[in-house]
């Protein structure tokens, strides 16, 4: 670091960033009609909620087990379908396998677009196109998983060791054989661990899937919210939280064994 790089010589740059940030902040405050007075005045409402949320209705728990199992089943099925679809696309999105930058860029652009659709919007769209129900939930989860894991898988493929590829090429393997015998064994364990990661994300996302009627525990959450039964909302969220923690622990244990 030279003396010219210190803040005393570069202060106008920092000032510029601060001014830009302040302008954006005040712009957004003005644009969103933020009214802190109202927030301060109605803060009592929050304590009403907190009181209800702090008293979860444990009797409701036994009616939640079935939807939760359903959610886990939907997530598992959707995750596996999504990952299976993601694998070929991820292979096509790397130059390692295709050797063709144009194809790679097209596939990457497509994957980026899939990834940017927020999953709640995706669910709403699919419910409108396919219809309401658990099957739609599975499709949504599959597409969401596809978006998340394809990115992770092609990043994993890009960091592999290239020498087995060279060896396979030297003995005359074609592209498909290289993909199956030289690339796949190197990324298989990462793919497995990404599958568990996606499963976790999907169990977490189940809360919002129910909001549009795509089945599982989210439907119960939506019902409880609609009926202002916050003691039920509280137990549902606690239950999801507990399940996520358990899933997290199991997948962590499996991922560690895979390494």
């Amino acid at each position: 670091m030279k003396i010219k790089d210190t803040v005393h010589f570069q202060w106008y740059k920092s000032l510029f960033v601060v001014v830009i940030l302040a302008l954006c902040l005040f712009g957004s405050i003005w644009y969103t009609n933020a009214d802190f007075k109202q927030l301060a005045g109605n803060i009592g409402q929050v304590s009403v909620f907190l009181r209800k949320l702090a008293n979860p209705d444990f009797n409701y728990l036994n009616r939640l087990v079935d939807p939760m199992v359903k959610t886990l089943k939907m997530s598992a099925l959707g995750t596996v379908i999504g990952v299976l679809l993601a694998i070929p696309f991820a292979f096509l999105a790397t130059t390692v396998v295709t050797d063709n930058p144009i194809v790679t860029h097209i596939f990457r652009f497509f994957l980026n677009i899939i990834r940017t659709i927020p999953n709640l919007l995706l669910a709403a769209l699919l419910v409108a196109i396919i219809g309401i129900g658990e099957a739609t939930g599975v499709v949504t989860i599959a597409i969401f998983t596809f978006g998340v894991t394809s990115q992770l898988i092609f990043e994993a493929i890009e960091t592999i060791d290239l020498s087995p590829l060279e060896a396979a090429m030297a003995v005359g393997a074609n592209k498909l054989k290289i993909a199956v015998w030289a690339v796949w064994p190197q990324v298989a364990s990462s793919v497995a661990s990404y599958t568990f990661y996606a499963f976790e994300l999907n169990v977490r996302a189940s809360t919002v899937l129910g909001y549009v009627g795509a089945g599982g525990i989210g439907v119960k959450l939506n019902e409880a919210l609609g009926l202002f039964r916050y003691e039920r909302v509280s137990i549902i969220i606690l239950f999801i939280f507990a399940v996520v923690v358990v899933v997290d622990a199991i997948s962590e244990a499996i991922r560690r064994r895979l390494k």
Partner: protein
Amino acid sequence: MKVSAKCKHWMTALIVLAVLVWCAADIDWSTFRYFSWGSFRGTMASLFQPDWSAFYTGSTEDIFSLMIMTIAIGFFGTSIGTVLAIPFTLLSARNLWKNPVVPRIGKFILDVLRAFPELVYAIIFIKVVGPGPFAGVLAIGIHQVGMMGKLFTEEMERMDETAVEACHAVGANGVQTMFFARIPQLMPIYASLALNHFEIAVRSASTLGLVGAGGIGATLIFAIQAARWSRVSIILLTVIMTVFLLDLLTGWIRKKLR
């Protein structure tokens, strides 16, 4: 008895397959029975014909100004989240406290904040400040406190302590080490995380409209319910392009920060 590796692989595959079949058997697939290819093709056709005239009409309810609103919600929410996450980070970083109980309490608070989905916060804040973008801002802000607080804490705990030690050696107190050793090291990382969360916030701000918390989501859900697919298409296109451009922009800034 020693099981060969190949046998083990087949066993694993078989178990996975059995679990999947068991999962699939229980799911209600009847939705697909009422599915008609004709209407699907019609929907898809109009989805590929975005209604550009709705993009900009000069009113405050057109898609362009709603998207700006969505970005503003994301920006303000992330600002609140970042600022509020810092005290929680100071509370829950293990290397700032000699007492092991305090960081555990801080982490527990962050876990609880993260456990609630944004939609629930949005519904709560709609009751507090009324439906509108400000409810979305608060929902995103509070949710981001949990997410960023966790990431900030992890970075704080992972940081290189040599500079801190050097400051201690020349007699600096806690506040001085904070300002001269910790902040210079953590500032670029925190800025990068905040930028990343700005993009995430814009994405969730575009969905919060579903419950009435402002932004583009409400318009989208109305268009979906009315089956106005070319309008749905232009809204989705706007959201996707905005998130894509923000991704590029924040990626560029984050690369510069490193």
